[in-house]
């Protein structure tokens, strides 16, 4: 296809295009339907971590592991017990955070 035919087809297509459609109340209809935007999820993460922490401590309170881990932690040494305690706290907190975020969605 040569240049002249190309430009004549382009011109024809442009002529055939009606251009923007008039509003006719469209914008008002859309604005009436606009939902409120979700607020930023600032509180969910700390809330989830706190819930996880409390849940974890509550579960571990009946075992000697928490006491041993806490004593080692306070003495500044990372024993198996304190490492397991920290991992358990972290895992439960992450699970609780994930649950909180999923609930919001």
């Amino acid at each position, binding site marked *: *296809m040569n240049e002249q*035919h*190309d430009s*004549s*087809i*382009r011109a*024809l*297509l*442009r*002529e*055939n*295009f*009606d*251009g*923007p*459609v*008039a*509003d006719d109340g*469209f*914008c008002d*209809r*859309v*604005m009436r*339907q*606009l*939902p*409120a*935007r979700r607020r930023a999820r600032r509180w969910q993460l700390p809330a989830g971590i706190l819930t996880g922490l409390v849940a974890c401590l509550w579960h571990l309170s009946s075992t000697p592991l928490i006491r041993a881990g806490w004593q080692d932690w306070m003495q500044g040494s990372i024993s198996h017990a304190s490492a397991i305690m920290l991992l358990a706290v972290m895992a439960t907190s992450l699970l609780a955070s994930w649950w909180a975020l999923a609930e919001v969605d």
Partner: protein
Amino acid sequence: MGDQDAEARIDQALVARALLGDDKYAFAQLLRRHQGMVRAQLRRLLPDDEATVDDLAQEVFLQAWRKLDQFRGAARFSTWLYRIAYTCFLQANRRKAGTLEDTGGEHEVLPAAARTVDLQLDLERAMRRLSHAERGVLLHCVQLGLSHDEAAYVLSMPLGTVKSHATRGKAKLQNWLSAWQEIETNR
């Protein structure tokens, strides 16, 4: 180009305002600035179905409002809207599958009548006989004035495919409407 840049800056400022303070007034301005062309795009994609066009256009702007924080400004706001609109169109089309079939008849020449209105009608008919992809590319590149890159973004097609659809589509139209060109030449 300068006008386009200025328009793009206004759109970006309005998007920032709409996001920052949950400002519905800023979004209303974006809506007023772009509804006409988005609805024109959908009307070309769905001729003879104005009710569906307006439903889809409404869905486009509701989605734009929900996804506004995903607009990064890499493309123009209008191009971003065209992409949402084209995706909505494809989804609606999938729901009522089979309404947009690619048509053949590449060598048939449409009969020429001697009036401009008839030329318009023949062009409409010829456009409908183009494949879905060719029609989409010509609509976005020629009628909506997007660059090939922008059309590739809207249609989710590789750039080379957009260019080849544009060339093939125009060649087909030229072939089908050749009788009109003969009349023009003989005048």
